[in-house]
């Protein structure tokens, strides 16, 4: 990806749902080798609440995705 142009734009509907063209999925997953047996796109129960790493809300300890998704 040309990071100065950020060509791959995510399109949203009126309520912030992501509308992804199939090409975007291909861009993402083609560049990431998948382990044998991994679906690569399986859903998980991860929650997205975290305090981030920077600013006054930085935390990085509450990233439940890392365990749920392994």
């Amino acid at each position, binding site marked *: 990806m040309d990071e100065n142009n950020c060509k791959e734009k995510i399109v*949203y509907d009126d309520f912030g749902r992501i509308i992804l063209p199939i090409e975007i999925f291909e861009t993402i997953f083609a560049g*990431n080798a998948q382990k044998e047996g991994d679906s690569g796109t399986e859903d998980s129960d991860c929650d997205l609440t975290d305090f981030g790493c920077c*600013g006054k*809300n930085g935390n990085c300890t509450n990233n439940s995705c890392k365990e749920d998704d392994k």
Partner: protein
Amino acid sequence: MDDLIDPRILYNCLNNKHFSIILMPTEQCNFRCTYCYEDFKIGRMKEKTVQGIKNLISNRMPELKSFGLEWFGGEPLLAKDIIYDILKHINNLLFENKHIKFTCGMTTNSFLLKKDVAEKLVNFGCKYYQITLDGPQLIHDKSRIQISKKGSYSAIMANLYTLKESQLDFNITLRVHITPENFDKLDEFLKMLKEDFLSDNRFQIFFKAIENLGGKNSGKFKTLSHENKKIIIDSLYQKVQPSESSKIVENNPFYVCYASKANSLVIKADGSVAKCTVLFSDDRNRVGLIQEDGKLKLDSEKISLWTRGLFSGDKNILHCPLSNLPKLSKNNDSFIPN
């Protein structure tokens, strides 16, 4: 491959079944911390923005599997009526959508986090708190100053002890700021935290080196060098939790910042939408607006600057997309007023 991240994590950052919002019910603060990067120009969230948020959540909730909400500010508890109002709305929706995993947290200076407030918030499902201390009272009161110029240590500690004595089901992260001036003066303070709080598994500690994040205080305080930061922070973890020091690692290889996630938004008190909670004065971080009916007007070009790590898979960008944030194209004609 070392710099690429597991595609399943990326997928969850693009999945409409997960939705995360950071809300700023007010951008006013009762503190004037000497290193703060915020400008406090925006006041309380207006009713039409509150209504917009409720409508947005009502629209999205039925399809969600997990919903993450974090309160941020300013000091969010200065607008606790707005917080209660939105949380009550969410709880009503959760009653009808019991399959949703709701996770709610707050970054608060805790000055106003009295027991009755905490009880109400916890009962609404707001269980995660991040509360900052700058060290023992003599040090803390020089930097975490109330707007009245008084110190804040006594009030914060009183609230923490009250919460500890309660039976409430919360999780408090005690964020301890580290500077070149305080890192070697923390032994007694950390001993107290370890004995009085960390023995209770509702409390955990997080050391964070103070950084220069811009704003009018930029350049007015000292920060640790990159080389010293890790050594000092590692040694501090050893003092409080030697057997568990690896649990809290700032450079978690799986960490994806909320600003990098396509399904995560910050809604400011003025109804503008942002991605990052640091770069508030930068036009690249004004990515949209929320309307009273809950509809979002989002600028895909601006958002693409923040979500670029999802396409490259670069861990460093996913960890902090603010780093080397690209410029907007010259023909970006923003519809978002300043």
